[in-house]
């Protein structure tokens, strides 16, 4: 029998393929709930989930909130700008105080890598990492894998190209761990300043030309250019970046005929992906990813609150 023998979901790196499969299978069953007229099941009645977000988020926070609500849990959102963080409270003090209010799960996003791991060792509650710095974003990788499995019927044996700012992307890192574990061939491409040092240690092939990575790919995953980091001088200009690394009709033609295009959002139209590709329902699965995100997060909340562990 398989089960999620974990207190926390901190990253894909520590997960086994069995655990990933269990989460994806569970999420697949939850997809149907979001199509009902009454989008709610009573499973997590009386459980509380705190979303503690120290960084901006639309998709992930809304998705976790809806996931909790559709399972009948009570969800509370805390964002740094409206909390005592502005009064100077430390992360550890905030966590201890939240712990004292007895929630069941704390979902945390923080700009510092390792912040969720710090909390996991500190409080009894389950911690879900909703993105820590440039480290991991496990629920995003899981929803990406669910989307790939839904569209392609499998993950093993597929060629997945991840394009963009690999070095600063937690989405890339979690996906590289997850997709490699599930048997996909992962290649990455980006300007040399955006490739992590010792990128080969992640078990992927790295290119500096988009075309080389995209050739014969089954899945192309574009990453967001993190405009908030632009001042760190990792590329000369947006326009120059777009000329070399923007996914368009021409370079997408090098991929397999039935290629799917993914993006974790929010998209910068015309920078990393041209609008006609992003909006083309025959290849773009960007909105499927968002839909699957709710189901994956329901699965995580459900599996973590199981008793008998």
């Amino acid at each position: 029998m398989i089960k999620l023998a974990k207190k926390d979901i901190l990253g894909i790196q520590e997960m086994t393929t069995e655990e990933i499969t269990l989460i994806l299978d569970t999420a697949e069953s939850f997809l149907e709930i979001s199509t009902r007229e009454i989008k709610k099941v009573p499973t997590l009645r009386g459980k509380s989930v705190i979303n503690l977000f120290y960084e901006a988020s639309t998709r992930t926070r809304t998705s976790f909130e809806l996931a909790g609500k559709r399972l009948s849990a009570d969800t509370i959102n805390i964002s740094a700008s409206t909390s005592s963080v502005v009064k100077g409270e430390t992360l550890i003090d905030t966590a201890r105080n939240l712990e004292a209010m007895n929630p069941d799960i704390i979902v945390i996003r923080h700009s510092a890598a390792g912040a969720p791991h710090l909390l996991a060792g500190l409080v009894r509650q389950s911690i879900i990492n909703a993105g820590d710095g440039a480290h991991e974003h496990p629920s995003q990788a899981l929803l990406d894998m669910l989307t790939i499995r839904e569209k392609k019927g499998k993950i093993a044996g597929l060629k997945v190209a991840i394009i963009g700012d690999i070095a600063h992307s937690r989405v890339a890192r979690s996906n590289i761990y997850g997709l490699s574990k599930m048997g996909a061939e992962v290649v990455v491409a980006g300007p040399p300043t955006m490739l992590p040092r010792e990128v080969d240690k992640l078990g992927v092939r790295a290119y500096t030309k988009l075309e080389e990575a995209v050739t014969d790919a089954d899945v192309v995953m574009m990453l967001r250019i993190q405009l908030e980091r632009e001042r760190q001088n990792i590329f000369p200009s947006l326009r120059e970046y777009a000329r070399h690394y923007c996914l368009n009709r021409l370079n997408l033609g090098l991929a397999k005929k039935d290629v799917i295009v993914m993006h974790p959002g929010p998209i910068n139209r015309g920078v990393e992906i041209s609008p006609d590709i992003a909006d083309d329902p025959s290849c773009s699965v960007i909105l499927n990813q968002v839909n699957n995100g709710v189901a994956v997060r329901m699965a995580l909340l459900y599996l973590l609150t199981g008793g008998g562990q």
Partner: protein
Amino acid sequence: MKAKKTLKIVMDSDGIERCLTRIAYEILEKNKGMDELVIVGIRTGGVYLAQRLQKKISAIEGREIPLGMLDITLYRDDIAKAGKTSPPGKTDIPFDLADKKVVLVDDVLFTGRTIRAAMDALIDFGRPKMIQLAVLIDRGHRELPIRADFVGKNLPSSLWEEVSVNLYEKNGTDEVVIVEEK
């Protein structure tokens, strides 16, 4: 999983077939035909029985009766205690339940808690006109005020016995057996 010892075969393949045929006619008789009638099987055993009932009823009436399947894991009252060992199955009810007469189908009726969960789940999909219950085996020991409308066989049993319905679709053989853990 512990090994199970078969104590007694209660019903064989022919017995199950005859029970289902009789139940199919009883459902049609009680509902005076199949207008507004739908069948919903409870995962997993109930789904196979529901599929067989669907075939029989459709054959008798000459048109297809709608069939749905229901997974009740998310509605269980012991979900916080029972460790979650396998992912919940899919629920698939491809029709509107409002004002329908629903025949719920399960293999064994025991404490009644599964049926309570199934009724809650059904009502989340709409307001059926009526819910009826068909089971292959009623083994007693109810913990909730629930009874079946159509019963294949009443099987008085002890609490330490386990009644298991093996079906061709799931186990490769059709039989109802009483087993105990070795």
